[in-house]
């Protein structure tokens, strides 16, 4: 059924989507370079401050050629997402009691803007924690 549109699909594929700008590429590179750590079943992401510093450095580098002053960011938005709760099947713990593992994920996002250079800085911190809800058995 879709074969009759093959020519149109090929023509669409010939269009070249615009690539992301240098600024977003630099910001992503800074994020990917930021260290993250894992510990046991509780996962804690620690990229926040390092990423923010690296991102600021990237902005300063990109703006440096023609802009002698570094951007001055103002906090314009802070948001905590609705937590996603995932319940798992009950498990038996080492002491013989039972508990239900629960995983909670949420994100903290702050957004900073510099009006003069019209640049933005997003500090994004995903949180992912695993805990146990004790179950009473009779």
């Amino acid at each position, binding site marked *: *059924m*879709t074969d009759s*549109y093959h020519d*149109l*699909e090929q*023509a*669409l*594929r*010939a*269009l*070249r*989507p*615009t*690539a*992301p*700008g240098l*600024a*977003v*590429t630099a*910001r*992503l*590179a800074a*994020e*990917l370079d930021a260290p*993250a750590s894992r510990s046991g079943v509780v996962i804690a*992401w620690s*990229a926040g401050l390092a990423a923010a510093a690296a991102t600021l450095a990237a902005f300063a580098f990109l703006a440096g050629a023609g802009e002698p002053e570094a951007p001055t960011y103002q906090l314009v*938005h802070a*948001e905590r997402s609705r937590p996603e709760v995932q319940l798992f099947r009950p498990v038996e713990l080492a002491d013989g009691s039972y508990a239900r593992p629960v995983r909670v*994920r949420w*994100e903290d*996002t702050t957004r900073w803007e510099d009006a003069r250079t*019209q640049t*933005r800085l*997003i500090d*994004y911190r*995903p949180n*992912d924690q695993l805990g146990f809800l004790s179950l009473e058995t009779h």
Partner: protein
Amino acid sequence: MHDAHSSQDWRAWFARNGAWLRLIACQWARSEADADDVLQEAFVRFWKHQRHLPGNPNALVVTSIRRSGLDLLRRSDRRALREKVVGDDQETVTWFEPESDPRLAALAESLKLLPAEQREIVVLKVWGDLTFDEIGEQLSISPNTAASRWRYSMQALRRNIIARTHD
């Protein structure tokens, strides 16, 4: 947790896929800066949360972009109400590189005229390389509905291009 893509160079992956990912972000953006923000936020979320998961990373990144796009719309709507912004700001977002071939240029313009629900199917199928099953999962619709929307969008694009050709 096992990392299904432990050998993946995500910088290189982004360099290969960034353009079409940005195109998807553009569907939700009213400015270049918004598109960049959506893309950055979504890719970072994917990279930190989901890059180790098995399966097609395209679909996971698309999910993340849609989520960031929805968040942006919620924020933008509040901002627009506050600032009483009017007009179709989407015109200011560049989706494609300029085309010297007038037929391709017409096609790019026609794509923008499609209803959002059809346009999204086209973008996900053509540039995201997602199947109708995967698109259905993304949009919470059946694969048959995704395929129907695809056919409607192709018919609309063809009509529009023929009309432009005869103008």
